């Protein structure tokens, strides 16, 4: 891939947001016109616990440079316990990715409530910056899926 020196690296980031808190938080960020980078593409899931590690790997495979998972704050899950399971699953998965030497800052879990539009925007700004610093995802990509 040719690196254009003039153009800043623009990462592709997939954000999984639970329908009840984080997706609503993202909507609120929009309603309040709080800017965050267009690198973020949101996928709506009913609950953060719906996110299968396979989806995250799939995103990296297809060229995502970062994946962030947002759910309700612990204790506030619409389904009462979903995000507690998410927390354990993602802690272990991210730990494993880290163990395999994949940059740990490409993955993140954040709790964003429906009232935290500002937090959503701030989190996305911050995460995009962090991923930008890491550069393109090379350690967990599928060469066949690399964009020309």
């Amino acid at each position: 891939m040719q690196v254009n020196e003039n153009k800043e690296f623009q990462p592709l980031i997939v954000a999984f947001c639970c329908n009840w808190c984080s997706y609503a938080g993202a909507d609120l960020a929009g309603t309040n016109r709080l800017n965050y980078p267009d690198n973020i593409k949101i996928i709506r899931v009913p609950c953060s616990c719906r996110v299968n590690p396979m989806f995250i790997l799939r995103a990296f495979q297809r060229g995502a440079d970062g994946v962030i998972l947002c759910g309700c704050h612990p204790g506030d899950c619409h389904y009462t316990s979903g995000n507690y399971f998410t927390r354990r699953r993602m802690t272990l998965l991210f730990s494993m990715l880290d163990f395999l030497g994949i940059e740990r800052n490409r993955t993140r879990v954040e709790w964003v409530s429906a009232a935290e539009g500002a937090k959503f925007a701030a989190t996305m700004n911050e995460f995009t910056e962090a991923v930008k610093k890491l550069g393109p995802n090379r350690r967990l990509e599928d060469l066949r899926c690399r964009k020309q």
Partner: protein
Amino acid sequence: MQEAMINKAKQLLSEGVVNRVIGWKRGEFAYDITPAVFENAEEIEKSFVYDDFTAANVSKYLVKESKKDGKILAFLKPCDTYSFNQLIKEHRIIRENVYIVGIPGGPKLDAEKIKAKGITGILGVKNENYTLKIDTIYGEETMPFYEAVLDKCASCKSKKHVIYDELIGEDGDTLDSNRFDMVEKLENMTAQERYDFWRSQLSKCIRCNACRNVCPACTCEKCVFDNPDSGIENKAPSDSFEENMFHIIRAFHVAGRCTDCGECSRVCPQNIPLHLLNRKFIKDINTFYGEFQAGEDITSLAPLNEFKQNDCEANIIHERGVE
């Protein structure tokens, strides 16, 4: 030991307690011992083997065998009993259909390690005061016993049978093993070093599926990797991503269920230390959620199937160790 086991098997068969026996028999080479089901005393007399090369865990075979008519006798080493228990917990084995005789475990030997010493044509081995006497077609060779022990036995976690109907020999205890040493060593490397280490290992993977087929936790009716609808179907790793993905997902699927029996690494023809991935999860589970040994009992909830409200947050990963 082999003699006592054969006698026990014949006795239980003749008493009608069981109608089959799962044990091991010899393959082409002396060190090539594989699980086998015996249906009568003659077969047992003829080919039942239990020796220093008999490392295979027969628990997984009981998923199918326990669903057949009649009761089957299974000889389980301590490490095998953990796998067996875990399978009962997951309703994969019908407990009533298995008669378990607990037998003392290893340390078992690794033929590869003997061969690495340049010793070939192995016909048989004998352990005399921790010197291994190896009978080969070229004559007798010797080497220190412990240099030939399987990695999984060298870091044995327990000599205790967690489930059995009767025991041959004495029951042991759980051990303080050093099994997390290598995981820790890797954790203390930089991310680049870890990445290089795992690339060098996982790139050897030929996707023979031996790890999956031997793993007592991998008993799915249909594996997600064989399922075209799963989104991650894949038969052969065509690049680094798929090499990684298979082993990440496999380790994740057995996380909290893996009893650390070490069979995956034992059977890997490419000698990839796959057990390190499972141990990493076990170590994380122990650190984050409290000590947990899969298969220790049949009632506790798997760590990924329960939670505490004050569990650590996922960002603990970002805050610790070496980037």
